[in-house]
């Protein structure tokens, strides 16, 4: 046990926790005035719902003793044998601290998906879907990569959750946009973000919290945490600049929303690579993340599905790029526990990364689709036409965001 590591992990855990309210602000600013609270609520309440699941069976399913490479089983249900001594995943901190850190990741992942079905899903449907999705998609995929499951055993590198969190939520977002359908008035009336300053504030909090997400994933307060911290900053800044530059060329104006979106794209893409690559690689990953994700967001307009807040374009595509980029740029110079990527003479790593990413995409898409259909059959997915026009704040929660 190490008090320095424990202190570092407690702080990192709190930083990751702050990302979920940050996401609520990021999303809340992007929707129309009538849906602000409903949108923020869908992120915020994950802090509660997932915490309960985690204690009862979530941590056990994700990190409990491996059952066939697929799931952790119920050996650690109700956190049985998860206490103050170190567990098998981090030798220098209490097992409970590791579990708390991982809980924050489990919270933000379903919250990310909510951007895809924003402004039209009933709260009851969101609530049920979140419980089902976290149980049947997040916990297994988390186990595959980090809990001793088959993707991890294959040698795939995912430092802080590019596959587990971003590919996973981005793919579920695509299924959500397709199953739930378009918002009423999509492409007929303008859906202007009601308060971009909230979105920029949210992006700032995400960026700040992400230092805990990435550096904390080292699980010790050492050199690898420092590498991850530095890479996080560089990739994020570069992606923000890349996004607004592309916009500037394409439409003539660099936008504030572009800067905020680019920053998030950079954070997403550097996540799997953070502790395995050097700063120059992080710079390349960031620049290309800004360009790829901006391209993906433009492509959505052509493809015509209503991923309201661009979860697919930013988290799905950014996560996929990050997973593959880790297979290109990884170097054991920066982390001896990692691996070398294609650019360091190990092309097999790229293949392994692709297999891991593809598995997460297929599994998440298919199971998310099924869970949405199940939710639809039990509660119905969408608010009624009248409620959607009236707004979800009033019809789902009996509140209004702004009283003037």
């Amino acid at each position, binding site marked *: 046990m190490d008090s320095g590591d424990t202190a570092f992990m407690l702080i990192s855990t709190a930083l990751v926790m702050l990302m979920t309210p940050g996401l609520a602000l990021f999303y809340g600013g992007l929707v129309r005035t009538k849906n602000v609270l409903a949108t923020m609520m869908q992120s915020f309440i994950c802090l509660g719902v997932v915490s309960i699941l985690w204690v009862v069976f979530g941590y056990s399913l994700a990190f409990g003793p491996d059952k066939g490479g697929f799931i952790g089983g119920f050996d650690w249900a109700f956190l049985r044998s998860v206490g103050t001594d170190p567990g098998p995943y981090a030798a220098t901190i209490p097992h409970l601290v590791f579990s708390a850190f991982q809980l924050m990741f489990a919270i933000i992942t379903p919250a990310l998906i909510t951007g895809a079905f924003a402004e039209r899903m009933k709260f009851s449907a969101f609530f049920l879907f979140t419980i089902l999705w976290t149980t049947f998609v997040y916990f297994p995929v988390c186990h595959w990569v980090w809990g001793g499951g088959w993707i991890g055993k294959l040698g795939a590198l995912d430092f802080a959750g590019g596959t587990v969190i971003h590919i996973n939520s981005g793919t579920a977002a695509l299924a959500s946009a397709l199953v739930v359908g378009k918002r009423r008035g999509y492409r007929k009336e303008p859906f202007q973000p009601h308060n971009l300053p909230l979105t920029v504030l949210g992006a700032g909090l995400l960026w700040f919290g992400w230092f805990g997400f990435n550096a904390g994933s080292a699980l010790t307060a050492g050199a690898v945490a420092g590498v991850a911290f530095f890479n996080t900053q560089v990739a994020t800044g570069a992606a923000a600049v890349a996004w607004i530059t592309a916009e500037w060329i394409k*439409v003539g104006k660099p936008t504030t929303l572009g800067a905020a979106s680019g920053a998030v794209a950079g954070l997403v893409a550097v996540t799997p690579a953070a502790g395995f690559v050097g700063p120059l690689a992080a710079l390349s990953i960031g620049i290309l993340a800004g360009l790829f994700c901006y391209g993906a967001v433009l492509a959505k307009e052509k493809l015509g599905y209503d991923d309201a807040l661009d979860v697919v374009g930013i988290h799905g595509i950014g996560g996929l790029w990050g997973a593959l980029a880790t297979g290109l740029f990884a170097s054991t110079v920066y982390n001896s526990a990692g691996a070398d990527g294609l650019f360091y003479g190990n092309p097999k790593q790229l293949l392994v990364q692709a297999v891991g990413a593809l598995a997460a995409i297929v599994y998440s898409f298919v199971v998310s689709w099924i869970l949405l259909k199940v939710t639809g059959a039990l509660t119905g997915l969408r608010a009624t036409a009248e409620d959607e026009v009236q707004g979800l704040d009033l019809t789902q929660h009996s509140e209004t965001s702004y009283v003037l």
Partner: protein
Amino acid sequence: MVKIEAIIKPFLLEQVKEALNTIGVTGLTVTEVRGFGRQKGHREIYRGAEYLVEFQPKIKIETVIPQERTEEVVETILKAARTGKIGDGKIFVYPLTQVIRIRTGERGKTAI
């Protein structure tokens, strides 16, 4: 008595107010409004989506004056609110039947 209503470019409000102050117009009501005329709308871009926002933000000023000052006030607003570019707005002049000061109950010109 006459009520003058003018739709002007928002950035010219201060200038118009100063000009009216100078000629002794004593009261003014200002509203933020949106609308379109020949200028039509403007483009807004949010990530991949481009929207034509049809209503332009404008300022509406309203003032009430004695009928004989109509030309003077209209000329003053014209001078202060004109840029010569499309979207400078319009001035409307209405006949007014009564003005009442609530505090004293005065009516007509003395209430202006």
